[in-house]
């Protein structure tokens, strides 16, 4: 199962402000091109052998992750030391960590090798979707952009995809364009996936500020219905449908790659067949269409009465729409819908979409023949959200189907 993203720890000599560090095992730390004061050397394994902390301090390394036995030597050398992590496996070599002194805490900003890495740029938003899993907060959080700019140089160069979420990242205005420029310079081969409602891109001026994103960014933009009345109702913002469509067109005309995203619930699901046709007819240039099951977090839990549909019914409608688009040559994926709810024909379109750290299986999944290919569930989806029709598939059934 998945690892938590924080753990308590003893932190010595780091000063009062939190620090972002790249945690590297000694051989990699010695070879890195990063400024060494941004690097924490990981000495927690016995195989690290005997290392002179004074030498690390002299080389200007930012800190060391060690054991309680390192304390006297670190103090002597003046090297900040993090030790006695409550869960040592939370932070591993290659991760980018945020270290706080009091109370001593290690948070994972980026985990090397995770299937999804995201930077959250703001918690503010200009919409208020009824099913929002991370409800917005209207606070000044401009420090997040500063931190993101600080993190980017510490990320591994071979990260394939870096996600950017919010809140609504376009509320950063020109800050977003600046961030894109930094990413392109520091991580030239990384693709960015940015979740936005696209409304502010109805201003072509804002589209010009993100021109660094052409050929590097996929803009994931949701549409919940084929008519404004219903879409605006879902996002609780009048005029949003028109603004989003203008935004999508402005992006596409400037050469950007746009992905259309849909989340299935009781308000949106009845619109999906017509929405699929709308996408095909109006947005055939979309690079990808993602049809998603609901994550029962945030407002989705609060608005359960308005939103819940049996996931099996949702799966059937989602599968039909996905097949409709796929037959027309559009790249389409189904996210967050378990395989046992989908018709076999839609399986090739289903992805293991849920980030490691919030993914789980149900009791029923024990012994299921397709478990390793199935997305399973959000941890937050308890039995009342999963419905009655989850059932393990037997190997016999599988071979029958493929025969």
């Amino acid at each position, binding site marked *: 199962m998945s690892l938590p993203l924080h753990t308590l720890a003893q932190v010595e000599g780091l000063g009062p402000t939190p620090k972002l560090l790249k945690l590297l095992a000694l051989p990699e730390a010695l070879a890195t091109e990063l400024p060494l004061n941004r690097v924490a050397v990981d000495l927690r394994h016995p195989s690290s052998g005997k290392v002179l902390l004074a030498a690390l301090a002299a080389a200007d390394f930012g800190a060391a992750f060690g054991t309680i036995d390192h304390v006297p030597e670190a103090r002597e050398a003046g090297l900040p030391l993090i030790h006695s992590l409550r869960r040592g496996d939370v932070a591993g070599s290659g991760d980018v960590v945020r270290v706080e002194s009091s109370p001593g805490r290690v948070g994972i900003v980026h985990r090397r090798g995770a299937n999804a890495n995201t930077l959250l740029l703001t918690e503010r938003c200009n919409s208020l979707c009824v099913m929002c899993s991370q409800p917005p907060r209207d606070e000044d959080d401009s420090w997040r952009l500063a931190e993101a700019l600080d993190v980017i140089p510490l990320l591994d160069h071979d990260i394939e995809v870096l996600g950017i979420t919010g809140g609504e990242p376009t509320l950063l205005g020109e800050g977003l364009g600046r961030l894109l420029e930094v990413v392109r310079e520091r991580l030239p081969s990384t693709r960015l996936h940015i979740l936005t409602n696209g409304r502010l891109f109805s201003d072509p001026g804002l589209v010009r500020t993100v021109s660094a994103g052409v050929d590097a960014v996929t803009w994931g933009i949701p549409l919940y219905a*084929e*008519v*404004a*009345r219903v879409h605006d109702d879902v996002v609780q913002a009048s005029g949003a449908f*028109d603004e989003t*469509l*203008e935004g999508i*067109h402005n992006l596409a005309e400037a050469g950007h790659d746009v992905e259309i995203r849909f989340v299935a619930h009781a308000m949106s699901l009845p619109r999906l067949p*017509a929405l699929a*046709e*709308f996408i*095909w*007819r*109006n947005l*055939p240039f979309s690079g990808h269409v993602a049809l998603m099951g609901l994550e029962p977090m945030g407002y989705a839990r609060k608005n359960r009465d308005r939103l819940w549909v049996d996931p099996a019914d949702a799966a059937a409608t989602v599968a039909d729409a996905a097949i409709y688009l796929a*037959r*027309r*040559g559009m790249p389409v994926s189904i996210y967050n819908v378990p395989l046992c709810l989908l018709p076999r024909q839609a399986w090739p379109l289903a992805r293991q979409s849920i980030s490691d750290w919030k993914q789980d299986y149900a009791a029923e999944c024990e012994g299921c023949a397709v478990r390793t290919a199935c997305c399973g569930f959000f941890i937050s989806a308890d039995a009342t959200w999963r419905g009655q029709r989850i059932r393990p598939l037997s190997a016999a059934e599988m071979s029958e189907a493929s025969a």
Partner: protein
Amino acid sequence: MRSRFASRGPGGFGLLPVRSTRLPSLSGRLLVTNEAGEFALLTEAEHAALLDGTLPRGTAAYDALLARHMIHEGQVAVPLRLLATKLRTKKAFVLEGPSLHIMVPTLRCDHSCGYCQVSRRRMDEAGYDMSPTHALAAVDRILESPAKALTVEFQGGEPLLAFDVIQRVTEEVTRRAAGRSVTFSMTSTLHHLTPEIAAFLRDHAFQLSASIDGPAAVHDSNRPVPGGNSLAKTLQGVALAREVLGPANVAAITTVTRSGLEQPEAMVNALVSLGFRSLFLRSVSPFGFAVRSARRTGYDMAAFLAFYERALRRILELNRGGLAVEEAYAAVLLRHMLTPFHSGYLDLRSPAGAGLGVLVYDHDGSVYASDEGRMLGATGDPTFRLGAVTEPLAQLMASAAMETLARGGVAEEQPGCRDCALVPWCGSDPVHHHATAGDVAADRLSSDFCQRHMGLFDLLLGLLEHGDAATRDVLLSWATRRWGTDGAPLA
């Protein structure tokens, strides 16, 4: 600048441009289309309420019209922008310029088909082959055209009787078109295909269409040739072409004459058993000698439509049984109906393909706007002769012939078509209307072109509406496969 706010009727909505038409297959409903070819089907009552402005908000019909930008709710900027994008997508060919270049290397032919469209010449007549000078000038014109993807097609006469011309043009275009995508194709009886010629065609990735009119009894009576056995000789050529070029590069093109009309199923079965998986069933066109021999080979359009419906149903039945066969013309029409794109087929578009999308280089150095225009030229009517192949493309494009074409070339402006809900899927054929009704802008009431397309669209809509899921899937798969600029499906 357009206004962001537009007035609304009593029901709170306003109208965007739509056309509606009643069609027999729709059992009382009306077809409503927008400019980009999206469609909705409405009952008479819904249609009346649409025109009154009283259709109730939020009903299924209301939302269907709203989502297809046929009505608006006061804010028109976004619907108009989306409509404009859709129209640009559907009509993207307008910006391409001539992309299909048809060469007639010779008028000579050993066949003497009753319906022959080209006023053929006998095998031994001299002076009907294209001269090297004209062939090289044609290459200049082809390369002057701005189209990104070019198709060079050889027709006749029997083009293989002048293989030296084909060879010269193909090599010259290949050498000089570096970096541009060029497709070569040829329509031929294949009687004169040799292993050497086949290897040349393979090396230049030719796509071949073999003229096959049906079972031997039908084909051989349609296509008399000295010594007889036309079909058998064509099939020898087909076998050789399949072996050398690959079966996917050899298609059948079938002209349906009166003798072929009787047994549509047998016609389909015959073509399929000969190994063809892409059929193209064409009615006889009223050009060249065909007009004169109409009594012998001709028939009225209703008879062709009845034939076509039975043939199509047989093809669909074969598909449901697991054999993937398509009818290429249905595929063109379905692509127009069911997708945001145009098929690229040059004989069914608006503005018309003639001159704007196609140029024909005749054996004698004349340039025509279309093959039909060339046949009119051969029978003494030079209306669609753009000029000589030695004139620069810009000059040919500024000819009086092009002005005439422009007048009749936009279907959306023609009497009849202007108000027809099928017009976004249909096209305009000014050369045909000039030939049959005396004017490029003749109205469509008496037009067999219109009758044919009304009938075909009605048939396909009926199958889409009332057919079973398997039938609809087959029709959709024809619409969504990939197409080349000349309307030919890409393998």
